[in-house]
C-alpha cells in the first residue's frame, strides 16, 4: 500500500497485483463470449473452467459444477434463499440469526411481509447462539436455515458445520453466508452437510462485482435469473469473464496464504489489540475473542462516538470502520452491537480493525501509537468523562432522552 494504513478489509480489500495481471487480458484481447464456438470464445471458456477449479479447490467442493458464478455476495445470498422457498413451496418458515448481513436480513424481512415465518436466533453478550433453541426450531415446515459463518463486524464464528449436520438430520436445507470466512480459514465443503454457501470476490483481493454460490450436487434449485444457458442454466447472463478469472486467481492465492493468515496476520491482529487494550482504559473487545476470524478485532471505546474516532484516524491516514449510527447513513446503531446488548455508550464507540496479508508490523505500530491520544482527545469532550475516568456514579450525566 502506498498511502495510508488500510485496516478495513472486512469492508473490501485491495485487488492483489497478480490478480490484476491475470484479469487484464480478458478486458483487452480475450474479449470473446465463452459460449461461442470460435477461437475467440473458446479461450475464454477454458479460462472460466480453470477459475471454477480454483474456487472449487479453495472451498473443498467435490465437483466443479457445484460452483455458480454470480455478480456479488448479495446475489448469492438472495439466490440461495429464494431458491429454497421456490423449490419447496409447502415449507413456510426460515431460520436465521439477528446478526446476519443485510443481504440476508432484508430478504427475510420482505418474505415475512409475504407471509413467511422467520425465526431469528438471538445471540448472547458475546455474540453466541443457543444451540438448544436452534434444535427445537428445526421442523418439516422449515425451508431453509441461513446462518453466517463469520460475523462481518466482530469476526465471531458460528458453528455452521454442526448446525448444518443438525439441519441435515432434520431434513432441512442449510445455507451459510461465508463471505467473511473464505480465504481466512481453511474449509472443506465435501466433508460438511452445508448445502449452499455464498462468497464474494472483493473480500479476498479479487475485484468488486463478482461472487459465487456453492450449490451441493443434488440440492433442488430454482434460478434467480433465467435466460441463456450460462452456469448450466442456473444463473443466466453472459459471464463477467475478467472478474471470474480474477476470482479464480484470488482463490488460488488465498489457498496458498491460509497458513500465513492463521499465523502472521493473526499475530499482527493480536499485537494491535493488545497494544490498544493495554494503553487505553474503559475499552473492550466485542464478540467472542476466543472464537473468531484471525484478522478482525472490534474494540468498543466507551463514552465516545465512533464516527468521530474514525474521522481523527482518517486524518492520520488510518482507515477502519465503526458500528456507530452516524456512519451507517441510517441513524441506527449497528444491529450486531444491539443484539449483543452492548450498552449504547460503548456500541456507538465500537471500532472494527480488519487486517489483511498486506499489512506490516510497522503499520500496526503506528496505529497502536495513534489510538490512545485520539481516545483521550474525544473523552475530554465527553459529558460522560471527567479527568481520567468516567463521571462518578452519583453525579453521572443522565440526559433526558428522546
Amino acid at each position, binding site marked *: 500500500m502506498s498511502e495510508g494504513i488500510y485496516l478495513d478489509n472486512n469492508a473490501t480489500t485491495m485487488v492483489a497485483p497478480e490478480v490484476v495481471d491475470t484479469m487484464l487480458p480478458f478486458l483487452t484481447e480475450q474479449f470473446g463470449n465463452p459460449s461461442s464456438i470460435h477461437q475467440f470464445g473458446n479461450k475464454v471458456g477454458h479460462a472460466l473452467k480453470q477459475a471454477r477449479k480454483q474456487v472449487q479447490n479453495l472451498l473443498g467442493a467435490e465437483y466443479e459444477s457445484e460452483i455458480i458464478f454470480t455478480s456479488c455476495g448479495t446475489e448469492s445470498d438472495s439466490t440461495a434463499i429464494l431458491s429454497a422457498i421456490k423449490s419447496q413451496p409447502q415449507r413456510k418458515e426460515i431460520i436465521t440469526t439477528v446478526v446476519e448481513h443485510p443481504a440476508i436480513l432484508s430478504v427475510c424481512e420482505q418474505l415475512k411481509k409475504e407471509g413467511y415465518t422467520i425465526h431469528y436466533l438471538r445471540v448472547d453478550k458475546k455474540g453466541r447462539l443457543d444451540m438448544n433453541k436452534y434444535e427445537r426450531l428445526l421442523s418439516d415446515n422449515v425451508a431453509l436455515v441461513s446462518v453466517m459463518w463469520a460475523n462481518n463486524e466482530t469476526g465471531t464464528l458460528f458453528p455452521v458445520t454442526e448446525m448444518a449436520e443438525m439441519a441435515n438430520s432434520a431434513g432441512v436445507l442449510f445455507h451459510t453466508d461465508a463471505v467473511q470466512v473464505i480465504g481466512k480459514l481453511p474449509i472443506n465443503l465435501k466433508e460438511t452437510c452445508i448445502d449452499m454457501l455464498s462468497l464474494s470476490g472483493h473480500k479476498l483481493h479479487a475485484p468488486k462485482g463478482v461472487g459465487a454460490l456453492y450449490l451441493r450436487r443434488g440440492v433442488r434449485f430454482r434460478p434467480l435469473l433465467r435466460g441463456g444457458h450460462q452456469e448450466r442454466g442456473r444463473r443466466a447472463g453472459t459471464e463477467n469473464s475478467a472478474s471470474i478469472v480474477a476470482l479464480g486467481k484470488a482463490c488460488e492465492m488465498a489457498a496458498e496464504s491460509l497458513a500465513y493468515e492463521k499465523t502472521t496476520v493473526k499475530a499482527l491482529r493480536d499485537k494491535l489489540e493488545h497494544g490498544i487494550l493495554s494503553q487505553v482504559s474503559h475499552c473492550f473487545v466485542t464478540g467472542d475473542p476466543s472464537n473468531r476470524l484471525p484478522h478482525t478485532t472490534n474494540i468498543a471505546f466507551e463514552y465516545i462516538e465512533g*464516527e*468521530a474516532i474514525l474521522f481523527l484516524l482518517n486524518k492520520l491516514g488510518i482507515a477502519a470502520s465503526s458500528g456507530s449510527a452516524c456512519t451507517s447513513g441510517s*441513524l441506527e*446503531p449497528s444491529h450486531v452491537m444491539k443484539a449483543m446488548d452492548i450498552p*449504547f455508550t460503548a456500541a*456507538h464507540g465500537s471500532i472494527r480493525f480488519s487486517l489483511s496479508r498486506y499489512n506490516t508490523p510497522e503499520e500496526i505500530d503506528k496505529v497502536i501509537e495513534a489510538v490512545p491520544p485520539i481516545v483521550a482527545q474525544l473523552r475530554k*469532550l465527553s459529558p460522560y468523562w471527567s479527568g481520567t475516568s468516567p463521571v462518578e456514579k452519583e453525579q453521572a*450525566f*443522565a440526559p433526558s432522552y428522546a
Partner: protein
Amino acid sequence: MWDYSEKVKEHFYNPHNAGAVEDANAVGEVGSLSCGDALLLTLKVEPETNTIIAAGFQTFGCTSAIASSSALTDIIKGMSLDQALTVSNQDIADYLDGLPPEKMHCSVMGREALQAAIANYRGEKWQNDHEEGALICKCFAVDAVMIEQTIRDNNLRTVEDVSNYTKAGGGCSSCHEGIEEILTKVLAEQGESFNPEAVAGEKPKPKPKLTNLQRIKLIEKLLEDIRPNLQRDRGDVELIEVNGKYIYLKMTGACAGCQMAATTLGGIQQHLVEGLGEFVRVLLPIEELQRRAAMRA
C-alpha cells in the same frame, strides 16, 4: 466518509468552548438514544441583563455533533436569552457552511440543549418533544416518525400526499417503497388498506388556467419572494427556462456549489408548487450540474 465543509472540520479539530463553564447557572442535558448523541451544555447568564456571558459544551457524538456544539456556543455567547431562543438548527448549519442533510439532526440536539438550559435557568421544566425515527428520505432528511405523524394528522393516502406535506420522497424518489410501507401501516391501524393506484387528495385546486406569459410572470414573482432569503446568505437565483412542469433555475453567488443547494432547491420547489397550485419540478440546467460535478472532482 461524510462530505464535511472546511468549517465543520475546523470546529471538530479545534472545538471552541469545550468543557463545562465554571460556576455555570444554567445547565441543559439532552440526548438521543437512537442516534447515540448526548450533549451537556453549561451557560453563565448575567442576571441583570439576562445575557449569556459564557457557554461551554461537552458532547458525546460524531464529528458534526461536536462541530455543531462548538458552533452553537460561539453563536449564543453575548446573546440575550430571548435572542438565543430564536437560534434555529438552520442557523447552526449555516454557521458551519452547511451540514450534509443526513447530519442535520446533529444540530437539532444543540438547539434542544439550549432550550433545556434556558428552562433550567428560569426554573421551568423542559419537555423534550423531539422524537426521531429511522431516516427515510435522504434528500430532505425526513425520518419515519415525522412521516407517520404527518400521515395521521392529515389523513394522507398516497406517496404524493406525503411528499407534498413533508417533502419526503420529493427528490430522488428512492424512498417511495419506504413511504408506502409507512402508509400501509398507518392506514391498517385505521382499518383501511393502502391503494397504490389512489390519486393524491386535498391537493390545492388548480387555479383558472394561466397563459404561458402569466405563468412565467407568476413564477418570477414567486422567486422574488424567496430572493431576500437567498441574498441574506449571499446567494441568488435566476430563472432560465420554463418547459411545462419543468422549471430550470440557475443558482448564483454563494448558492452555487453550496452544500445545502439540494435542500434549497427543494424549498424553492415547494414554494413554487404551493404558489402555482400545480406540481412542478425545479431543475438545474445541465451545464450547472456539470460545473458542480467538475468542482467536486
